[in-house]
């Protein structure tokens, strides 16, 4: 069950006409996932399940280390493993990425959501789902550029990482960051995380990863979950992390021009009809018509 945390300030609600404010930079939080430090131990996955009391049935092995095989309503974060043969450097790389909600500054899920207040954004940047208002339509799934939300078959609600908004509201970091044994996951102000990332990128460059960098994609105005990547020039190497994520133009069109043009068209059609009625008056059958019909029925020439 996800809910709106009353201890955090809301800046955006889904399906409401409130103006869209910019997040105040000072209050923003971020989780930095340093892939160069991640050993794929899944402690974050387990911590997430423990804190959020999520228990799915164990699945089968399907020939990979990714378990469960995909995100689902009871798995909000998942380690994704990719074997990459770096031919330029003549070495194998095992790229392990913790997948989960990126908490976009410009959240596609929130944009797509038709249920007022089912998706909210707090002033600290966390994007949260609210089960009370969620109608399970799955529009958030279509809105998300990262393929994160999942709809529960049990209660028809959408679920995803909350960035432990409940813990953050109490001044704690997310459960995954707390559990991470190698400090691959750190949590703090977005500014501090960007600084830490710069330090890590410098270290990686010194180790020969010339294209190391921070993943904080501008297409969604940045995210509140960021990655340090050895190959920042090829995010898609990391189990299909989008190279340049943005809210799909189709979704933008749907939630933008279509929404307004559609209402306009419907309204216009009704107005034209009404206008016509007043201008032209009703189209009535006259007695003459009835007579003609009677004559026709009786076989007389008309």
């Amino acid at each position, binding site marked *: 069950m996800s809910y709106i945390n009353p201890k955090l300030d809301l800046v955006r609600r889904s*399906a*409401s*006409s409130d103006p869209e404010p910019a997040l105040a930079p000072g209050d923003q939080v971020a989780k930095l996932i340093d892939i160069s430090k991640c050993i794929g131990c899944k402690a974050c996955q387990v911590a997430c399940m423990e804190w959020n009391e999520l228990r799915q049935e164990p699945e089968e092995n399907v020939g990979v280390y990714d378990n469960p095989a995909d995100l689902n309503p009871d798995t909000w974060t998942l380690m994704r493993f990719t074997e990459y043969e770096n031919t330029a450097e003549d070495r194998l790389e095992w790229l392990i990425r913790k997948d989960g909600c990126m908490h976009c500054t410009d959240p596609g899920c929130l944009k797509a959501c*038709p*249920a*007022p207040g089912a998706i909210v954004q707090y002033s600290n940047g966390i994007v949260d789902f609210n089960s009370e*208002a*969620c*109608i*399970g*339509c*799955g*529009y958030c*799934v*279509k809105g998300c550029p990262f*393929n994160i939300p999942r*709809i529960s078959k049990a209660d*028809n609600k959408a679920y995803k990482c909350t960035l432990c908004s409940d813990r953050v509201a109490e001044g704690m970091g997310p459960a995954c960051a707390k559990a991470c044994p190698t400090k691959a996951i750190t949590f703090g102000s977005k500014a501090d995380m960007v600084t830490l990332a710069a330090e890590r990128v410098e270290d990686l460059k010194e180790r020969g990863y010339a294209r190391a960098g921070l993943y904080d994609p501008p297409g969604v105005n940045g995210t509140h979950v960021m990655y340090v990547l050895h190959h920042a020039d090829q995010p898609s190497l990391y189990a299909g992390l989008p190279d340049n994520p943005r809210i*799909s133009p*189709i*979704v933008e*069109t*749907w939630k933008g021009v*279509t*929404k307004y*043009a*559609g*209402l306009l*068209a*419907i309204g216009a*059609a*009704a107005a034209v*009809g009404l206008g*016509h*009625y007043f201008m*032209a*008056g*009703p*189209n*009535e*059958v*006259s*007695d*003459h*018509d*009835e*007579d*003609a*019909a*009677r004559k*026709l*029925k009786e*076989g007389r*020439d008309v």
Partner: protein
Amino acid sequence: MSDKTYVKRYSALARANHWVTAISLVLLAISGMALFHPSLYFLSGLFGGGANAREFHPWIGLVLAISFLGLFFRFWRLNLWERTDNVWLSRLRSVLAGREEDLPEIGKYNAGQKMVFWFMSILIVVLFLSGVVLWDDSHEWLAANLGLSFTIEQSRIAVLVHAIAAVIAIVVWIVHVYAAIWVKGTLSAMIRGKVTGGWGWRHHRRWLREEFGKGAKGTPPAE
């Protein structure tokens, strides 16, 4: 003053078919509009909230699709395009002004009605297909029985197509309903199944001739 003659226009089955379709369409429009724009979200109240509106919408859609299929097979021959339809269309000004004397004699349906029919036929197919893509609950069944699955990109296209098609369908529906209201005596066709002879004489004279010709013992009506 004068006694009205009456002509049967729709059988009871046809009317029932129509009204099932009509009610489904209205419910779909309302529930759909509720999820289409935040300012219309209150409409979901009619269904007991957004979750119900979301849950019922595809099922109603399924009813509509089946129901409309009935209408389609019932009426598609009568809606085939004819030469006179072009004339009717070219004299739209007279149509709107109600000067039907300027128009050729019309069979059971005029070009406007035919266009509504064909628009709806196409739109409902589009809405049904795009709707299935959006109907998550059906996906397990589709995957198991038809081997169908959809990517998120496909569902994004589907949702846009669904919205645009729905808007057009609502506009067509408005035209359809308005025509029925504007042209007095029309509603009777779908309520009581019959229209007055005068209505037939005025709006669908060729159809009236055919109807009367069928039962008449005398000479067939002159063309």
